[in-house]
């Protein structure tokens, strides 16, 4: 009898605790929110933001994960932000859970061990799905810290509408743009032709060509001529460097190459230039409308071609495209980041993602199975042209990956600043000396550059 009483009491207690507990059990836990700094879209409508919304509403909702974008910028800005945060600079923001980065940013960080080694979250089979060269590029000190999500290469973009006008008047051909020598010759012609449009205004010839990274032009150019661009932690300045310098400097001194800072898309947007070499991913930022200084605008056709090479050089092109780093935090947050990244690099979704941004997918199966169909279905002619150029590049070029030097970033930054500064100085000297001084000025400017580098 007594035992029955105790059992009844115990049962009542369990029931009571169960009743009080069940109210809380039904409560939804707060989602694991992870932050992301990315570059896919910069200030424009970002296709990645749309995909993130899709993730949050589907897999994120199921697994209680919320990805929040707290910065969409460009790799340079994010690079500075990441380093400022990593060094704990005054006023610097905290590192986000994920950020887009080149290996050069990781190498410049004071302590790269703050980043997750993806080998801890991806098994060997999963890693083997990625293209091995992309995995190798993201591996720093034997740790896979930069996960490839989209890869790009350097591509040439042409304002074909403007080029056709130039071509009709001068006989310039698109095929001239297949080599650097041909391109820089056209640049000289373009300056002369545009200057001739307004005979009453002297020396108002327009810039023909803009390159996003002059450093890349020299680096790939020298390497394509079979010599080393780098020498240890510095630059080699081999004879091939002079070969690469000559046509470039000639066109620049004549006013045919853009020396202002900023991205290559800017002068094409304002009609100040008509040909550029930039990351394929910049396709998102090219507008099919050019707005001129008098506020008139013109619808133009932007087409893409493979990056030019040197006549005597190997067909080599810079492979670009940052990856995503994950900052170590709690296992739940790290797992949330990895869940999102696995979702983003799913073979089919990755193709959907990259083809909206002008990138290439990162898995072999994506290339083989889904990319051809995606390219066929592209409706925007600019994107269709880009992917045609992509395929031609893949077929005819070797991809060049920049070495992982601790000093790479410093070399690049110094080179970009100094080469523009030297050439601006050279232009001033050339204008003062007159047209006959161009040969001397080309090499004098090179000496000036080497001296100040």
């Amino acid at each position, binding site marked *: 009898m007594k035992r029955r009483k105790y059992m009844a*009491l115990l049962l009542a*207690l369990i029931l*009571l*605790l169960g009743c*009080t*507990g069940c*109210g*809380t059990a039904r*409560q*939804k836990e*707060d*989602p694991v*929110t992870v932050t992301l700094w990315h570059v896919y*879209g*910069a*200030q*424009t*409508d*970002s296709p990645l*933001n749309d995909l993130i919304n899709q993730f949050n509403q589907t897999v994120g909702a199921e697994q209680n994960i*919320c990805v*929040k974008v*707290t*910065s*969409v*910028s*460009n790799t340079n*800005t*994010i690079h*500075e*932000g990441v380093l*400022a945060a990593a060094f704990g600079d*005054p*006023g*610097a*923001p905290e590192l986000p859970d994920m950020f887009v980065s080149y290996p050069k940013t990781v190498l410049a960080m004071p302590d790269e061990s703050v980043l997750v080694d993806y080998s801890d979250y991806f098994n060997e089979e999963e890693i083997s799905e990625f293209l091995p060269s992309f995995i190798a590029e993201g591996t720093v000190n034997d740790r896979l810290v930069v996960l490839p999500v989209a890869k790009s290469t350097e591509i040439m973009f042409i304002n074909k509408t403007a080029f056709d006008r130039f071509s009709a008047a001068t006989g310039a051909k698109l095929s001239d743009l297949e080599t650097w020598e041909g391109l820089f010759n056209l640049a000289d012609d373009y300056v002369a032709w545009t200057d001739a449009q307004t005979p009453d205004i002297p020396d108002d010839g327009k810039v023909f060509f803009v390159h996003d990274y002059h450093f890349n032009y020299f680096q790939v150019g020298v390497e394509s001529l079979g010599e080393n661009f780098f020498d240890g932690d510095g630059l080699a300045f081999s004879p091939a460097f002079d070969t690469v310098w000559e046509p470039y400097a000639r066109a620049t001194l004549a006013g045919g190459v853009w020396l*202002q*800072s*900023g*991205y290559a*898309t*800017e002068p094409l*947007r*304002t009609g*100040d230039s008509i040909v550029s070499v930039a990351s394929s991913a910049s396709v*998102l*930022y090219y*507008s099919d409308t050019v*707005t001129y*200084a*008098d*506020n*008139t605008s013109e619808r133009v056709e932007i087409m893409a071609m493979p990056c030019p090479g040197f006549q005597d050089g190997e067909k080599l092109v810079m492979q670009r495209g940052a990856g995503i780093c994950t900052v170590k935090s709690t296992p739940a947050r790290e797992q949330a980041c990895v869940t999102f990244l696995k979702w983003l690099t799913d073979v089919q979704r990755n193709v959907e993602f990259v083809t909206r941004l002008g990138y290439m997918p990162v898995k072999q199966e994506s290339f083989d199975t889904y990319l051809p169909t995606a390219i066929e279905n592209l409706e925007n002619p600019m994107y269709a042209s880009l992917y045609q150029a992509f395929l031609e590049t893949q077929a005819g070029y070797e991809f060049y990956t920049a070495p992982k030097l601790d000093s790479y970033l410093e070399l690049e930054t110094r080179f970009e600043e100094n080469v523009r500064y030297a050439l601006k100085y050279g232009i001033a000297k050339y204008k003062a000396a007159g047209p006959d001084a161009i040969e001397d000025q080309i090499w004098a400017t090179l000496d000036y550059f080497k001296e100040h580098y």
Partner: protein
Amino acid sequence: MLSKLKELRRLTNAAKQQGVSMQRRLRLYWMSMVLAVFAALILVLSFAGVFSDPAQKLSDALAIQQQNTVAALSEQLSGLTAQCVALSKTLSKEVSNTLIEHGAVFDDLSDNQSLIAEVEEALYGPLHATLRASDCSGVLVLLDATTNTGLERSQESRMGLYLRYSDLNRTGSANQHLTYFRGASEIARRQQVQMHNRWNLEFDTTCLPGYDNFMDTPVDRLADGGIWSERTHLKDTWEDVLLLYVPVLDGDGGVCGLCGVELSELYFRLSYPPIVSNYGGMVTVLAPLNGNELLLDRAMLGDSMGLRLEPKGTLRFKEGTYYNTYSSGTERYIGLHQIPRCALVSGRDLAVVTLLPESSYDKLSASSRTAWIVGSLAFLLCMLTLARYLSRRFVRPITQSIKAIQESPTGKQRSGISEIDELLAFIQSKADQQQIGDELPPNIEAFFSEFTCRVEQLTPMERTVLQYYIDGCEIGEIAQRAFISINTAKKHNTNINRKLGVSTREELTLYIDLFRRCGRLEQITYHI
């Protein structure tokens, strides 16, 4: 000392032997019972949520946070208005000075590309300085002139400058990157500012909410002319912004343009992080009010980390005693809102809202209730156990005493309870007295024995008649019961009296009564 200790010990033993008063024990027992009832009451009230509802505390926490948020936002909004008023004055001077330098008036600006560029160049400095010094994500100036009036869209196209940050931080720094969103491209190049990916030369005024009304409204005081747009999408970008317009006046005091600042959705989110509280993360919202609805699709949302609050739809609110409840249809929130002094182009009020998810509050409330219930249940169980223990201890001496008395009625028993001990002592003294009373004097005993012997010498019929007398029958009734005549009964009566040595019926009755009183009637009873 030793003697004193001995004395103390003696007194303690005496007190122990004296026992505890039953009244004291009962008092303790009832106290535990009262506490048990009290615990049961608490348990019931806990179930009802009377103790665990932290509504008042939540209200206090919300009120404090709301007060802080309103203060911060009011300071930010009014501070930005003040800076824009100062900017407007500076810009008016810069425009006038530039026009004077070129011998032009404001109306000469349109279709004069170089003059527009000169004016914009002059305006860049103050605009840039204001952006660096202000708590905002962008700054703009628009003048009522256009580069090319011959264009079809010239009515909607207006010159001006628009600078924005490309990398927003919670704490602004001098290293933040600018982008050049609107304005002549040569100025961006001269100033070495990166052009926005969606740069354009001029503003499209159709994308500025309330622009036409704003430009047509005469202004007496600049400070009164400041007005905020609702959340609006920045065309071709991924961002939504809130814009402040302050008129830019020409030399005659007429409105010739506007200047202002931008609060982007991301900037607002970074500026107002979630406030961690016991009740969950509180989120700050700046939303236009439409009747009893907050227009979320036109609102700026603070960081809602961990909260699925999207800038979509509306939040219908209902005012409560401690706080308001807000419902989007699918999600419910708890919060407070307040309307600061701030004008919107739509004419609606702008509410500063502090929200937290109702689910977080419910979770806390449920866990608090669980703690109360478990606590009071544990207390109730303790009290019931104590009551059970005390009642057992209370009854044990009584039952032991009863058992001891049953086993040995004359033994000396002590229960440890003074009242019971007194009762036992009384019962034992009575028992002693009775035992003493049961022992008859020797002559009386001999008398009983002799009389019993005489009774045993009676004939069966005579014993039958005697038994009828013992049973209290009269002579007539005896004759009837024994089926004999009255005379025969009298004859047996005479023989009985003779053999027993009594002379009268009364004497015989006296003997019988004596046997009965002494409990010995059985000795003379005859079973018929």
